[in-house]
């Protein structure tokens, strides 16, 4: 199957709707559960999972508060104001640079980026970044809103950007502006780690772009500049975050993702998530048909999905009775047995264990015996 065929197949699965754009957050989320075929297919096809989940009556529950959005936007605007004056001061301090002059290039087109194809924007980003990498003079450049591309499961995916790339002396840094606070040098560990993995997606994409053009990919630094509000104020502070570990994770996870062609080959040929909207935009397809289509692709649900995947509530419902739904630690502690009722039957010795279950069954039986003894009030 050629790549064109794959693209056509994905378009057919998506149906008539416009493909949903990726961003670093969705890519980063994808790497958190690389074994999930359902997610890989839906994401590669650019399907609006949020709409799909609502349509099958398992709506996603992560809305965003307008207060958080407003705060994030205000902070970003403040840092970028006056040709990113505040950002430059921070960069000079953090990177120890004495940059006399810095140009500011906004790569989003003036006419509005929604109308322009990603291919065109990507080409422009590419030209400008290559020019900057070639003519490494004294002057630095800030590139706002570059459009990047990354291969996910063998398909190119464009990243709706939310970052600044900074170039000085032929070296690039990714600058990520986030509105969570760094209080006394400490920030929420979960937020920092998701910022780091998102930045790593950008570093990887920029490295791929420059490597294709014949540059050393290492000219994109693995030190990402994270800009956040300091303490309880609106004043920005910047820290360098080393994302080498995240890059390694990302490369490994993206590499492990089964190539989408192989996944598609195993699926029913008429698989489609087309909601078939009528003239008024109201979906006409039976939700039960969508459920059947979803069931055709294997999912790998873990409770972590609830925070990152729009379809998680559907998959959780489907995974009821599976030990995986209780979290990976519980599943492991139950000897890796798939189903809850199997684990209990083994524990209470009402099911003869299969050969590979013998060890788990012995452990579960011992645990069940000890639990019963302690609950019966036997002396310890």
């Amino acid at each position, binding site marked *: 199957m050629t790549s064109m065929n794959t693209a056509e197949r994905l378009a057919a699965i998506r149906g008539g709707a416009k493909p949903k754009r990726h961003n670093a957050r969705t890519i980063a989320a994808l790497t958190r559960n690389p074994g999930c075929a359902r997610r890989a297919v839906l994401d590669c096809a650019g399907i609006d999972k949020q709409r799909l989940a609502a349509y099958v009556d398992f709506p996603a529950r992560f809305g965003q*508060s307008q207060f958080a959005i407003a705060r994030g936007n205000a902070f970003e605007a403040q840092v970028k104001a006056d040709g990113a004056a505040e950002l430059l001061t921070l960069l000079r301090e953090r990177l120890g640079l004495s940059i006399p002059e810095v140009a500011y290039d906004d790569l989003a087109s003036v006419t509005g980026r929604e109308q322009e194809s990603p291919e065109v924007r990507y080409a422009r980003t590419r030209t400008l970044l290559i020019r900057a990498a070639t003519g490494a003079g004294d002057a630095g450049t800030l590139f706002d809103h570059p459009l990047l591309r990354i291969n996910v499961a063998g398909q190119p995916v464009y990243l709706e950007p939310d970052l600044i790339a900074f170039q000085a002396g032929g070296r690039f840094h990714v600058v990520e502006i986030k509105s969570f*606070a760094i209080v006394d040098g400490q920030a929420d560990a979960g937020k920092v780690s998701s910022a780091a993995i998102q930045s790593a997606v950008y570093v990887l994409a920029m490295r791929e772009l420059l490597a294709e053009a014949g540059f050393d990919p290492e000219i994109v630094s693995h030190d990402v500049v994270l800009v956040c509000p300091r303490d*309880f104020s609106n004043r920005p502070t910047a820290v360098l975050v080393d994302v080498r570990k995240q890059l390694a994770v990302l490369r490994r996870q993206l590499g492990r993702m089964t190539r989408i062609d192989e996944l598609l080959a195993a699926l029913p040929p008429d698989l489609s998530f087309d909601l078939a909207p009528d003239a008024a935009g109201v979906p006409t397809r039976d939700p039960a048909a969508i459920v059947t289509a979803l069931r055709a692709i294997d999912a790998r649900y873990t409770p972590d999905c609830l925070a990152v995947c729009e379809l998680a509530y559907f998959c959780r419902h489907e995974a009821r009775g599976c030990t995986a739904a209780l979290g990976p*630690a519980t599943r492991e502690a139950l000897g890796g047995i798939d189903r809850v009722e199997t684990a209990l039957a083994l524990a209470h010795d009402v099911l003869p264990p299969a050969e590979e279950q013998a060890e788990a069954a012995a452990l579960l039986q011992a*645990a069940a015996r*000890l639990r019963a003894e302690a*609950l019966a009030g036997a002396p310890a």
Partner: protein
Amino acid sequence: MSTLVALARAEAVAAGFAQRTTTVRHLHVAARPLVFVPLSMAGEANAPLAALVGTDPAAPRLLVVPQPRNRDQRFRFAAELAEVLLPYLDSFRGVAEAVPVNRGKEIRHRYVDAPQVLVPNPAGIQFTRLLGRSTRFRRTDGDYPVHPSVPLLGRWLTFLADRAEHPGSCLLLAMTEALTLHWATGQSPLEDNHLAALLAWIDPPDGLTGAEAAARAEDPLTWPPAGPLTDPTFDNEVLAPLIAAYAEAGDDPGRQARAREALAEALRGQLAPTWRLMWRGLALLRDLPPGARVAQRWAEDRDAFTGFASYLDEGGHPQPRRDGAVVAAQRLHRLERALQSYAVQRAYDDPLVMADYRLTGEAFVGEVTLADPNRIDDSGRRRVLRPRIMLRTTDPVQVTPGTAVYSPDRPQQKARVVLVTPRPDGTGTDVVLELTGGLGRALTPAPGSVPEVGERVCYTTLSDGFMPPGEFPAREETPWTHGGPPTADEEAVEPTAEDALEEWE
């Protein structure tokens, strides 16, 4: 997660109700706890939005910040919280008891009771920590003066949040953690962070299984999030228009009062369900019988409370922004010791917790089959009493001869494993133990000090014995490899005028 807890989760799935993972309560539940349910504004570092706080389930005090980005209103919130919290803390400073120290050569005092603050979840503890951080350096003079209660509140909140990291401490507790310590639900630990769903599994309303009730509890309309973050839909559809209406009311006192009232009602609606859940959780915890060593740990909490109260009486400065190297190392060492001791104490107090260690071979229970209580060892210079017992166990025994083991029933006594012999007919293992200590002073053992034939006893490698404190250099002698002596941010010092000016908007 231990296999026993995982098994309890599996049983909860099958039963549709949460299952106990302990036979006793491992926490102290105060007679008069204070419940604190804070809400903060999304997107901000630590912008209080509202709170319900108080010691009477029927009469919580509602605190509201109509304009959370306004600096003065934030400090007014802190001052109002102080009006509730500080008198509550003070009320435990009436009666003290004398405690002998240094082998009875000296005495010190500690209060006979201490405060206990409960928040819904770990994020509530983090909110408490940040509110403490943002208020403890404030000054009552100079620019932006605050009410004297504000910096005092900050020091107390910081103390409580620090103490919450101490394993086994009960001065500041997160309800979700207190409950999951005692029950396993049929959902994942991640979902257990949702207080309403967790309580639904443990104590569902009549006619519903825990699983059904938990599914309903996930609807944010009936069960708003337990905070500090609010439901985004509530933010967008209810809160934003009400805050805007308050802002538009301007200086018109009538309009402003009405807008404030509307806002207060909406926020009360978000907080009240969690407030009720907190007291239900408390009642469930109170119903459990306490473990034998809970009182001992609560005494340590009372010591910590007494110590910090006198530190403040002596004009103690606010806790530093960061710990210096030596203080940090000492703290870590203390926490590690507390963690180990807490784990051992829970196992000693609770056969169901000890079962975890039996499963992994770190403990075994058996019946005494032979006993030689009057055995004398005369191989050394002095004749000494060294009773021996043999017990038969069906537990997997992983200990080897020479290992020291202890029994929760006789914690002062040490036993040395002499022989481990699997029985030839496969009915278990015979273990011979030699006992030292806890036998009295004579060459015959005190009555009851040696297990008798037929008694079921538990022995474990876990020891709750004295752990010597680590040695650390003086703070001013911090080696350069660890950053040298503490900087200003790492020492408790009088806040400067600059500290008080710290932006908070």
